[in-house]
């Protein structure tokens, strides 16, 4: 490549392979499909965010004075269902993963391009079901669909909502399958397993969880619909069923799902931090093994959601031990990211701000998870705002921060143009401040015993709720900023170079935006991962 093409769009850029809507809706290019996903999940993110905004407004005062109780319950259910299944689970894998995995391993495509497009259509179909559910009056079970409330007592659109989640699960399974085969079969010559970027490792492990866990969710959701429609007892004791069976099945999927959401975020942080510290990631192999360890132990901890459910004490104790153990590889990752900074040459471009924010917030979220792994403390804290704060630190402080960090890091690659760095830094700081103001008070609310899913609350909780709602306002502004300037950058930004950050991955060895076939020639000289050298001083 001469210097010239990096100044203007490569003539065969994937963005230029047809401008019609049809050319996008029938594309088999993983990069275009990534953008289709990006548009869809952004829509759902702001829809789920709108529900959260109304919730936080309602909670400004102890009384129910904005919406009624039923509407409130439908709002937090919509928020949970949309954010978990229509934003967080597809977020990093289906957008950044789809776009980058083939580029990072030196491939021209994913293994099954048509299946990849089918995944997006299935996702969209599931999304339509959820939108119909909302238009039909919503669903009020909470995203956890606990039985027997969901099967025989709720009078809302449970079957419709369950169908939407059931359908979107297939898009998860197909995406996971596609990535697993892609990583196994399509690596460039010389791209050995221990040369893979950690982002690929993370998405690979995530894919395994998607393929193994999602079918359990699908079966469980079918059983809900089945009991609701036929009144044959599965979960309702009045019909001879067992309500705890549902919780076991649900969390057997939904706890690993937490790692579906956070492992790819760890992968993003592991790309950004070495690049802006100009140093190889500390303990690369340990980092890869930690990812696999989290994915495996993550399947064995579901019962920690059920310490007060009535499950056997001995089961709870075993789940507690395993929950402490799953924290070890997470701790290792935090220590290794920190050690990566040591003797680096650190610059603070916006992706790095997001990545460092991710490490800090993930650490707090992880450490507070220990309180919930400890049976005797979980009894008091479970089902309170402490849990809400904990998993928002992981899901929002962790995953959303990393997703935004990744968008900023790879945006020049994806759209071939750069965004205004000052605005990006302002947004990163705004989000960090708004996030902490929103969710830190919720830890305190939980310790003081405020239960979650409360439309009205005791007056002694008001002050902390006011802090939280104020933070949510700041956070909302923080999220709208990137929406504005990233779109602006896509249309008007300065043309980006092939490798604006001086990064090492194969994705930076091709023009920005990449050509349709990713590489003019498949790279054969694969360097060691993260071959950064700190600037000598």
């Amino acid at each position, binding site marked *: 490549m001469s210097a010239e093409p990096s100044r203007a769009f490569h003539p065969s850029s994937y963005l230029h392979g047809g401008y019609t809507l049809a050319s996008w809706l029938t594309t088999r290019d993983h990069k275009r499909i990534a953008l289709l996903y990006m548009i869809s999940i952004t829509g759902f993110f702001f829809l789920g965010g709108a529900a959260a905004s109304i919730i936080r407004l309602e909670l400004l005062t102890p009384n129910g004075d904005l919406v009624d*109780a039923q509407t409130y*319950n439908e709002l937090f259910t919509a928020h949970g269902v949309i954010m978990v299944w229509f934003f967080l689970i597809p977020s990093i894998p289906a957008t950044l993963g789809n776009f980058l995995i083939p580029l990072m391993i030196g491939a021209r495509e994913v293994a099954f391009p048509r299946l990849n497009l089918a995944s997006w259509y299935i996702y969209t179909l599931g999304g339509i079901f959820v939108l119909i559910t909302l238009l039909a009056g919503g669903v009020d079970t*909470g995203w956890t669909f*606990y039985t*027997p*409330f969901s099967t025989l*007592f709720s009078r809302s659109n449970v079957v419709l909502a369950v169908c939407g989640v059931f359908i979107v699960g297939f898009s998860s399974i197909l995406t996971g399958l596609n990535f697993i085969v892609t990583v196994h079969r399509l690596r460039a010559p010389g791209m050995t397993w221990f040369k893979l970027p950690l982002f690929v490792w993370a998405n690979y492990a995530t894919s395994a969880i998607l393929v193994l866990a999602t079918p359990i969710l699908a079966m469980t959701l079918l059983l809900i619909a089945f009991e609701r429609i036929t009144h044959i007892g599965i979960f*309702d*004791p*009045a019909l001879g069923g067992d*309500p705890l069976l549902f919780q076991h099945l649900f969390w057997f999927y939904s706890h690993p799902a937490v790692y579906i959401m956070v492992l790819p975020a760890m992968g993003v942080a592991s790309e950004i931090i070495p690049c802006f510290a100009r*140093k*190889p990631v*500390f*303990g690369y192999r*340990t980092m890869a093994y930690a990812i696999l360890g989290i994915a495996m132990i993550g399947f064995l901890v579901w019962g920690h959601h059920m310490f*007060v459910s*009535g499950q056997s*004490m001995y089961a709870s*104790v075993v789940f*507690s031990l395993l929950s*402490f*153990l799953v924290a070890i590889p997470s*701790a*290792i990752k935090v*220590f*290794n990211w*920190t*050690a990566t*900074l*040591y*003797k*680096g*040459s*650190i610059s603070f471009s916006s992706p790095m701000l997001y990545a460092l924010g991710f490490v*800090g917030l993930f*650490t*707090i979220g992880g450490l507070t998870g220990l*309180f919930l792994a*400890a*049976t*005797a*403390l979980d*009894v*008091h804290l*479970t*089902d*309170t705002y402490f849990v809400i704060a904990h998993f928002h630190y992981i899901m929002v402080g962790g995953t959303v921060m990393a997703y935004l960090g990744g968008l900023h890091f790879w945006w020049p690659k994806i759209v071939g143009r750069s965004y205004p760095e000052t605005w990006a830094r302002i947004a990163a700081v705004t989000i960090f401040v708004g996030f902490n103001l929103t969710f830190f008070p919720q830890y305190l609310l939980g310790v*003081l*015993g405020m*239960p979650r899913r*409360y*439309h009205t609350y*005791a*007056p*002694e909780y*008001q002050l902390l709720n006011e802090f939280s709602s104020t933070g949510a306002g700041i956070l909302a502004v923080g999220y709208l900023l990137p929406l504005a300037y990233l779109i602006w950058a896509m249309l008007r930004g300065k043309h980006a170079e092939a490798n604006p950050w001086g990064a090492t991955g194969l994705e930076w060895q091709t023009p920005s935006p990449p050509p349709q076939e990713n590489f003019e020639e498949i790279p054969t000289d694969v360097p060691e991962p993260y071959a950064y050298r700190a*600037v*000598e*001083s």
Partner: protein
Amino acid sequence: MTSRAESVLHSASSLGRTVDALFLSLLGITGVVAIAVATLIVFFAVRYRAGSKADRSNPPVRARWIEICWTVTPLAIFIGLFVWSSLVFSDFYRPPADAMRIHVLARQWMWKLEHDNGRREINELHVPAGQPVELIMTSQDVIHSFFVPAFRVKQDVLPGRYTSLWFTATRAGRFNLFCAEYCGTDHSNMHGSVVVMQPADFAAWLAATPGDQDLASRGFEIYRRAGCSGCHEATSTVHAPSLVGLFGRTVQLSGGGSLVADDNYIRDSILLPDKHVAAGFAPVMPSYQGQLDEEDIRALIAYIASQRSAQ
């Protein structure tokens, strides 16, 4: 408002003190780790910022000993925390033998409580300070959860079975009672209070307006009316196990195995008699599902429990 917040922070049960000790220790440990990580990140970020003159010779890319160190140290701490927490947790499952039993029936969206002397309450539970109290709980509809933050206790309340929870309140006062498991439209209105009284005050309160009948006498009436006595009395011609001294005893089951005859066993025997058949008896008992409601079953159990050493 601060006084109420303080009243939650200052635990009001015997378990609460041990829970709070664990909480504060974990807060200390995690606080140190969080501050250490944050300090290191900020320190490195400043010291090794691009262009600084810090020494960057021999940057480490891996160091086996330090990685082992920061794997094994948290592991050891976690095992310690796990053991401590499990010991405290096991206390939640060991109500003192002399605990006063109070019966809880949850439904959308209220708490109905009944004392052994037949006194009933709704959304308010009076208990004496200093005496262990065991709640025997079930739900009439969906899953609820009995949560008293000041006592550090919480237990889901399920339909179709009993769950239990115990505490010893350590000081008089009025404490929030919440439903902590989402249970439908008015979930957040399903709250009340636990009123802890001095034992003498409580005794006076309990005696002031007892129910028409105490629970066990009501149970005895049902025992005769529903026909239980026809088979289970010693004089009966039907071969059925005697219920005297049953409660709390170990029962051998036909087909092997044994279990302790607790509330759930008796409940199951009434509603699902084929589930656990006592050894040496034929499975001839009919189910009373649909004929007895939760309050009848509760009374029957109280009657059977009262027959511990009678006769």
